[in-house]
């Protein structure tokens, strides 16, 4: 029925995440406390953050190259982390083929490979379908999950903020493989349920178990004397479950679940709240070591966020088509992109103030946040100079610099990421676009 199917899918995913068979998980409500105690050595994490419709280049890219540079208006929220960030100018999405720039910008961003022909017609170009390959986050995730020392409960988390409820090449950037788009969870309560849902169930169960035992005692007077043994056994097992529940909840208290504000509806106007809730859940998952890889997709390619809280009534994508000469629109687009940067900054700040559970520095020391976009610039729909801003110490890059490349493919950046995780693949995505190998000058 309605819900049972959805529940089953959730449960199946859940069990797949854990690598457990159905038979072993009949009692799944105590699984969040399962420890993955095999972690060895320093952790490495990567988070990809997406915002749409290109940027305002001269308000985004530092004019200078090298260690001495000034953050332009859009990047100012990251000022406190200036010595821990990298801007990569000149990285281009050179994947061609079917689909318009928004579609390829989005669905080729992490996959680096063409879209299949299909039935989705964009604003220009030929119709297309899904990406024909896996995305880099999933490639890294799979690599980490194969190894006991880096395996985590979920491996990766696919989160979103106000993503429209439809599946197409404009709304999906994560792919488990060719033709396998993975949907982001954009409802923080659903994300919470994925992580903690069974905790709520356990609380409900705890409140009722005394009554269940009382019920069993009451029916003894009705049952025939010869059958009481069966009821005794039944009651014993209820008590065993009660004990296990208590033990499980004691284990849980080491990392408390984040306290989410209740009743926040998944709407445009709630974006600021929703974004923070998702970031809080993400940071908490890292503390629990439930995942080493994450994506946070804020809206979607061609996203139409209306940032009324900034006093902007127009929808983002519409504004992004206005010519450079429209200074009012350029100002608004600058504000919009700065707001997105604030979301990245909030994530970075949370990571920087949260210690690693093992005491080895902060989460940011071992995490690389990559903020990116499907277009270089909205009104030209260019796939050149794709925004890439990297923050954090996760992959050992030399930070605190503004780097300028000469039109390199973004496949080489994706390949570099895999290598920094120790995953020695020779190419990623379309092999021809990997020529030259790793991006130089990062380490």
């Amino acid at each position, binding site marked *: *029925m*309605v*819900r*049972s*199917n*959805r*529940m*089953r899918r959730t*449960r199946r995913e859940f069990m797949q995440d854990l690598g457990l068979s*159905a*038979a072993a998980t*009949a*009692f*799944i*409500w105590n699984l969040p406390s399962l420890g993955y105690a095999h972690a060895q050595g320093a952790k490495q994490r990567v988070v990809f953050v997406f915002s749409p419709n290109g940027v305002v280049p001269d308000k985004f890219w530092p004019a200078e190259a090298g260690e001495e540079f000034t953050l332009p208006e859009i990047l100012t929220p990251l000022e406190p982390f200036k010595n821990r960030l990298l801007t990569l100018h000149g990285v281009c999405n050179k994947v061609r083929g079917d689909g318009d720039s928004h579609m390829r910008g989005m669905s080729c961003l992490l996959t680096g490979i063409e*879209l*299949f*022909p*299909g*039935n*989705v*017609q964009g604003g220009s170009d030929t*119709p*297309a*379908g*899904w990406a*024909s390959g896996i995305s880099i986050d999933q490639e890294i995730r799979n690599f980490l999950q194969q190894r006991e020392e880096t395996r985590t409960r979920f491996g990766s988390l696919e989160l979103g903020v106000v993503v429209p409820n*439809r*599946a*197409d*090449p404009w709304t999906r950037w994560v792919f488990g493989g*060719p*033709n396998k*788009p993975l949907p982001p969870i954009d409802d923080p309560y659903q994300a919470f349920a994925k992580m903690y849902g069974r905790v709520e*169930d356990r609380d*409900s*169960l705890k*409140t*009722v178990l005394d*009554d*269940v035992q*009382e*019920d*069993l005692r009451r*029916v003894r007077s*009705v*049952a*025939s004397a*010869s*059958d009481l043994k*069966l*009821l005794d*056994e*039944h009651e014993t*097992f*209820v008590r*065993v*479950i009660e004990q296990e529940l208590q033990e499980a909840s004691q284990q849980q208290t080491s990392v408390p679940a984040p306290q989410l504000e209740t009743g926040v509806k998944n709407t445009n106007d709630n974006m600021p709240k929703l974004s923070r809730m998702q970031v809080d859940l993400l940071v908490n998952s890292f503390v629990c070591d439930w995942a080493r890889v994450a994506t946070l997709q804020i809206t979607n390619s061609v996203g139409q966020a209306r940032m009324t809280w900034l006093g902007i009534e127009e929808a983002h994508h519409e504004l992004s088509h206005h010519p450079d000469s429209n200074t009012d629109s350029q100002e608004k687009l600058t504000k919009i992109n700065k707001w997105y940067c604030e979301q990245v900054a909030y994530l970075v700040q949370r990571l920087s103030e949260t210690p690693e559970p093992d005491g080895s520095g902060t989460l940011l020391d071992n995490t690389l946040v990559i903020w990116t976009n499907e277009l270089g610039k909205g009104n030209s729909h260019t796939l050149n100079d794709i925004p890439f801003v990297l923050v954090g110490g996760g992959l050992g890059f030399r930070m605190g610099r503004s780097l300028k490349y000469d039109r390199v493919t973004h496949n080489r950046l994706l390949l570099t990421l895999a290598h920094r995780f120790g995953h020695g693949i020779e190419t990623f995505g379309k092999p021809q676009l990997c020529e030259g190998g790793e991006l130089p000058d990062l380490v």
Partner: protein
Amino acid sequence: MSASCVGRMLLDRCAARSHHPARSAFAVLMLVVAGPSMARAYSDNPPPDGRTIYGQLCARCHGHDGQGVADEGTEPFAGSQTLADLVRVIDETMPEDDPTLCEGDAARSVAQYVYDTFLAAEAEARDTGARIELSRLTVRQYDNTLADLFGTFLGQGKSGDERGLSARYFNSKDFNREKLVTERVDPHVQFNFSEQSPEEGKIGAEEFAIQWQGGLIAEETGDYEFCVTTENGMKLWVNDPRQPLIDAWVASGGTQQHRATVRLLGGRVYPIRLQFFKFKIPTASIQLAWTPPHRAEEIIPPRNLTPDWCPPVYVNTIPFPPDDSSMGYERGTAVSKAWEQAVTSAAIDAANQVVDQLNGLAKTKPDAEDRRQRVEQFCQQFAERALRRPLSDEQRAFYVGQFFQENVPLEQAAKISALLVLQSPRFLYVVLNNEQLDDYDVAARLAFALWDSLPDQPLLEAAKAGRLQSRDEVAAQARRMLGDARTKAKMRYFLHHWLNIEHLESLAKDQERYAEFDAAVASDLRVSLDLMLDDIIWNDTSDFRQLLLADYWFVNQRLAGYYDLQLESGDEWPAQFHKVACDSQQRAGILTHPYLLARFAYHKSSSPIHRGVFMIRSLLGRFLKPPPIAVAPLDEGVDPTLTTRQRVERQTREPTCQTCHGLINSLGFALEHYDAVGKYRALENEQPVDASGSYLDLQQTLTQFNGARQLAEFLAASEETHACFVKQLFHSMAKQPLMAYGPETVSGLQKSFAESGFNMQELLVEIATTSALGTNKE
């Protein structure tokens, strides 16, 4: 094969108790000679009395009191085999190392002693000790109960006679009502429009959309994999109108197979909807297939589709540990930690479902003023429905009222109430007391016997009105309930168990010898058998004997082709099954149905032993202990000139083997006209098939027959077969030992079965009524 093996393979009538290791610990008759001085044959006249012989020849291995001797590998005497069986076994096989020591009168004498002293006493103790035990819901009962519990509030689907799916064709890609061109019923979904329009002149070839919807009839419980193949965009919903099971709105990379699996309960109808559109792709095609449990992938056939709307069904997806079936039927007389965990998890899932659907269940709206009242009222109804009787004020407060306090959110109150109800012993046990029954207990027992589920509204009303007191009243209710799809589902569940096919996943045969016998043929055979069973049971005469005697089959074109049958039809749908007559000398009912013949056969050859054992255990209700060691069949290569019969005869020719195999083989040989895939053969290895056989019944009457038809006629007329069917059906329905209802119940049911002309529907009514009203003696 050693003599000890033979001792362990003795016969026992008591099929129902047959699989329980402790209770069926059947007499292991191993007599060992104490020493050389004892080496004196008791074949002279007159022999000493049985007690003396037992002490000298038997006690060392079987114990002085028949208790068994662990070091000798013997167990206490138990079972209910006849004295004659015992005489034969002792005469031919005991003592183990020299059976000649105890023959003739000596064997008769010691057999009489063992029988009187140990077995008869044991049998009496067992029969008088049998009682109706407190039983929790079996897994099947639990799943169906939850489905019907939710169905009470959300509606229950029924399938009419029409088959296929409602189809709507649109002359646009977006299902715009104004562009709706055609409404019709499509028997199935398998279309290749290529570059054409579905309806030339009415619908453009470039861009169109089609929606199919209706009900999906699931026949068996388990995982169903759906597979939609198309190069275009589609979405499929199964049993969930909100969340698509498959969302492939984006077509990508040419023709794709989209697969997803969902669990369904057998005997129910589920909502299904398929949306399909063509846009920006040069061609269009779509097919909707599934892989049902125990079957191969196929286009979903019209007989599993109905154009009528139906509501979703709640399907529990928490795996439960299998029920104890050591007595030959699934029963709920034990609990375990794994079971309690499953009950708890399933209760949580169901309680979450209550919250998720609260407004629909309570017939209210989020902002309704009387929402609290409605929700509490619903929770009371939910509790009464689940617990199957009206609640006292105190019970109402305990299960519901105590949670509805001002500071508790409604959803939380409803959730906790549901959690308590679904873990209550009043919910989890069929009835709590089998000595004193009230009308609601009778209603519950009747519903669980016929449906493995809750009583329905009319039954509860009858209970409330005190109209379930007399046998006639209960029988009238049972008769009313016969026509329900749940009775048919339960009957099929029983038949699959009876025929040993409930867990059969596939039937693979040697691909060199039976190249065309593939998964599709095997899958069709299962359908063919089911159609035959339904046809015989659900007609006016419902004659049990026809299960063995019917001279027709259900076949589609594939089966007709494979088994050389004439199928005259110009079907556009080759998978359609038709009833066709067959040579009555070559085919007789289920015994010659290739699904069973192939099931009871080896990879390459027939197996008279498997077929014989099936007949002895499942049709005649006699007990065979398994051989103590796995015996591999003689390889064909040992002597390629031998027929299967000759090979089996050679391997089992030892007198010790013959104790059991005399009986097994002589039944199985009568089916030697059928090879490993159930095809008829007149010759094997260029020799004429010898299908002569015989059966020695419990009265020691020997019947001889030649071939399947004569064998079937014998079995159809055999009282042993009738008694076995009655007993097994009873156990499957009541989940309690038939003996607990007294010997007069056993003979009464057999008598009424015979008097009704072996009408199986009447038997269902009789058993349901008897088991609903039966109580333990005080």
